[in-house]
C-alpha cells in the first residue's frame, strides 16, 4: 500500500507543514540547551540569544496554524491526514510553551548572574534540562518515523524528570533553611526547576499526539506521575 496521495500537491502541503514543525522542534531543543547552559555558566549573552530566539519560535507557531487552517479549508483532510493536521497544531502549541519556559529560564539567568552562585543545584538543573531536551529529541524522532512505541517510552520517561524535580525541591528547601540569604536565588532556581518539569509534561503531551497520529487513539491518563512535592511539608 502506497503512502502517497494521487494528488501529489497534497503530499507536498502536508510535508511542508511537518517540516515547519521539525524546524520549530529544532529551535526549541536549542533554546532548552542554551538556556540551561547560560544558567550554569551565568552567561548573560547566551541568555539574550535565547530570549531573542523565542520570537522565531512564536512566528513558526503562527505560520503552522495558518498552514493547517489552509489545508483544512482547501483539502478537507480525513482520517490520518486529518490527524496529521490536528496534531501539527497541538504539537506546535506545546513547542511554543516549551520555548516560553526556556525564555523564562534565560530571563532569570540575568537576575541570578548578579547573585552569589549556589553550587550543587546548577549542575542538577542542567542535567534535568538535558534530560528534557533528550526526551524532546526522541519524541520528534518518533513523530517523523510515526513510531508510537518510542513515543510511549518518552511518555513513561517523564517520571524521571519528575523525580529530579522532587530532589531539587528538597535541596532548595535545605539551602534556604541553612541560610536565608539564599532565599532569593533559590526561589528563582526553584521556578526554573518547576518550569523544566513542566517542559517534561509538555513533551509527554507531544508524545500523546504522536500516539494519536499513529493509532487514532489518545492514550488514557494512566501515566506514572512522579511530582510528589504537593505533599511535601518539611525536610527530613
Amino acid at each position, binding site marked *: *500500500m*502506497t*503512502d*502517497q*496521495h*494521487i*494528488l501529489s500537491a*497534497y503530499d507536498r502541503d502536508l510535508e511542508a507543514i511537518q517540516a515547519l514543525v521539525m524546524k520549530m522542534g529544532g529551535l526549541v531543543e536549542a533554546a532548552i540547551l542554551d538556556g540551561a547552559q547560560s544558567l550554569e555558566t551565568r552567561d548573560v549573552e547566551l541568555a539574550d540569544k535565547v530570549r531573542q530566539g523565542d520570537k522565531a519560535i512564536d512566528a513558526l507557531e503562527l505560520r503552522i496554524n495558518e498552514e493547517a487552517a489552509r489545508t483544512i479549508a482547501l483539502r*478537507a*483532510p*480525513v*482520517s*490520518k*491526514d*486529518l*490527524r496529521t493536521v490536528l496534531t501539527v497544531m497541538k504539537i506546535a502549541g506545546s513547542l511554543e510553551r516549551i520555548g516560553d519556559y526556556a525564555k523564562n529560564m534565560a530571563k532569570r539567568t540575568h537576575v541570578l548572574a548578579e547573585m552569589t552562585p549556589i553550587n550543587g543545584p546548577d549542575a542538577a538543573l542542567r542535567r534535568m534540562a538535558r534530560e528534557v531536551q533528550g526526551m524532546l529529541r526522541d519524541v520528534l524522532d518518533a513523530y517523523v518515523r510515526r513510531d508510537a512505541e518510542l513515543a510511549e517510552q518518552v511518555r513513561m520517561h517523564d517520571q524521571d524528570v519528575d523525580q529530579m524535580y522532587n530532589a531539587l525541591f528538597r535541596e532548595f528547601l535545605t539551602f534556604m533553611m541553612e541560610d536565608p540569604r539564599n532565599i532569593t536565588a533559590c526561589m528563582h532556581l526553584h521556578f526554573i526547576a518547576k518550569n523544566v518539569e513542566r517542559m517534561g509534561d509538555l513533551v509527554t503531551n507531544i508524545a500523546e499526539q504522536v500516539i494519536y497520529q499513529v493509532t*487514532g*487513539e489518545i492514550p488514557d491518563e494512566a501515566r506514572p506521575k512522579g511530582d510528589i512535592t504537593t505533599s511535601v511539608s518539611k525536610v527530613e
Partner: protein
Amino acid sequence: MNDMRLIDRAVDMKDIKIAARDVQVYYGDNHAIKDVNVDIADKTVTAFIGPSGCGKSTFLRSLNRMNDTIDICRVEGNILLDGEDIYDKQVDPVQLRAKVGMVFQKPNPFPKSIYDNVAYGPRIHGLAKNKADLDEIVEKALRRGAIWDEVKDRLDKPGTGLSGGQQQRLCIARAVATEPEVLLMDEPCSALDPIATAQVEELIDELRENYSVVIVTHSMQQAARVSQKTAFFHLGNLVEYGETGQIFTNPVDPRTESYITGRIG
C-alpha cells in the same frame, strides 16, 4: 436541525430495515458482489462509497430488484426487508418498488406536467380515492421534496421545463409520493450545482425522519455530510461498514484509509 447529530451520529441498530445475508451478484460470469452482509437501519441515512466498478450501485439496485431487468444478472443470498425475503417468488417487484423507491443520477422527470409526474405512482397503485385526495398527495409529496413553493403556481407545466436541481427534487417528490419505506438514491447530486446539492442534502436529512435512505455517492464529502452510517465497497467486497464519523476519522481497514484519503488503493 438537531445539533447533537453534528457530534454524535450514533444509530440505534435495533430497527433494522434491510438485512443482506451472503449476497452474491453475477453479471454472466462476472462476480460483481461477493459475500455481502449488511444491516441497514431504519430512519437512517446509509452511504455507499467506493471507486467506480466496486459494486456499490449494483448492490443498491439489488435492494429493489432493479437488476431483474438485466437478463444476465443473477442474485444469490438473501435480502430481507422487514424480515421478508424480497427475492421470494410471491413478491411482486412492482409492489416492492413502491415500498423501496429510487432516485437516479440524472433527473429523469416524465415528459408530463409537474402534477402528473408526482401523481403517476399514487394513480397506478390506487392510493387516491378521488381527485381531492390525489391533490393532497401531490402537494404533500412536493412539500416533502422541498419544491412546493417553487412549483405550486405551475403544476400544469411540463416537469422537463424545470432547472436541473428542481427536476431532481421533483423526482424525489415523485419517489416519496407512493409513501415508500426505503429510498434508494444513486448519485442524486452528481448533475447538480453546489446550491441544488445543498438543497437535496437538506432534503435527505429531513427524509431521514420517516424513511431509511441509502445513497450511493462518489463524493466522499457528501457521504460525510449526510450519512450516519457509511459502507465502503472495493472490488465487489464490502470492506468496511461503520459509523460515518469513525470511517472518516479512524477507519479500521487500510483499503478504506487509502480510498478516503485519496491515496492509491
